[in-house]
């Protein structure tokens, strides 16, 4: 299966679980999400540091004012702030966010709050790019805008710069080796497109 040599076409039946698996991988691989969550983590850690500094200063003031009973908790809390900041950063790790996002998407699909619908999709890939459609939505992406081709034990995912995703469950391939071959072939096409755009720039 090599779209660079011959166009590839696949009929895909997607279920809610497929979208949830895809969401986890989007959060873990899409540059847009990596960037947003990294910035949010930095912001949260900064807030905790700031609050810790204020509490430490208050504790210090209490100590100077001769109230050690009040000062000790403040100083202890201030000194424990780096630990708390580390804990918060750990709590909002990319893995955890990915799992939470998948769970929330599952609920959103159940509540029909999300426009991602299960059902039949078609995937077509050729030397220039990939097309993904369910009749209601058709997305065409040249290999140059694909940011990641992700292969998990159960899915092959094509992510583009806008965090749109094409989801190919391994069960839709005749053999698991076909999924592996398509992943490598698409990866090579993305590399070529990137090299061409870098050369053009």
């Amino acid at each position: 299966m090599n779209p660079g040599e011959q166009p590839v076409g696949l009929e895909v039946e997607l279920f809610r679980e497929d979208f949830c698996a895809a969401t986890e991988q989007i959060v873990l691989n899409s540059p847009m999400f990596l960037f947003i969550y990294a910035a949010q983590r930095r912001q949260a850690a900064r807030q905790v540091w700031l609050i810790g500094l204020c509490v430490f200063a208050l504790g210090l003031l209490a100590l100077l004012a001769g109230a050690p009973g009040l000062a000790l908790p403040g100083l202890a809390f201030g000194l424990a702030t780096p630990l708390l900041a580390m804990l918060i950063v750990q709590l909002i790790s990319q893995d955890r966010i990915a799992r939470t996002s998948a769970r929330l998407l599952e609920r959103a699909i159940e509540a029909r709050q999300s426009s991602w619908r299960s059902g039949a999709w078609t995937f077509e890939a050729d030397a220039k790019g990939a097309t993904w459609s369910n009749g209601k939505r058709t997305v065409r992406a040249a290999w140059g805008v694909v940011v990641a081709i992700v292969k998990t034990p159960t899915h092959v995912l094509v992510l583009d710069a806008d965090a749109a995703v094409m989801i190919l469950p391994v069960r839709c391939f005749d053999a698991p080796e076909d999924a592996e071959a398509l992943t490598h072939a698409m990866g090579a096409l993305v590399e070529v497109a990137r090299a061409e755009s870098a050369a053009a720039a």
Partner: protein
Amino acid sequence: MTGSGLFISFDYTVTPEDVTEGAVLIATGSPTWVATRRRSQRVFRRIALVMFLVGVVGGVIAFAGPPAINGVPWFRLCGIALIFSVLAWLFSRGLSPGAQERAQRVLLKGAIDRGEMDALIGDVVFVEVNEAEVTWSTSLRSCRDSWEAISAVLVGPDHALLLDSPATGVLFPRRVFASDATFAGFIAAARERVDRTGASA
């Protein structure tokens, strides 16, 4: 731009403001994102309330409690609980729509200044809308959405966005419309079309 109501077509060059406003509209208006934020906000508010109550009860006991349980450091307990209460309240405030909008603007400004959005800025986007579908395309990407794939119409001061997945959509800058009335007419027609599709789904 040509046409009026739902039947319009135009092209525009993406500016840094378009990228920022599009991201702000999605972060503050996408039903999936809003649901995620409200859930986190609820959790932090509950923590703040519980800690506040612990703090108040601790304070009351410290002042008026029976001597038999005075061995417990109620003042310290009260202070620590109140500090955590303020901390949780601050986090819940950080998740308000206004705070999220400000955070998104800061994030995007940083990304634009660092050149991380150069792939999008300067791109020429062609948009075509009619009674059946919304189409947009650039040199490397294209997307055709039937109205059934559009889940919401988000409107900002100078942009409208048709949301086609939890985190992507088609952007309509006000500047491409002939007048404010044409822009308002398009938004009204699009809302009516999305409501009609939602009602029949």
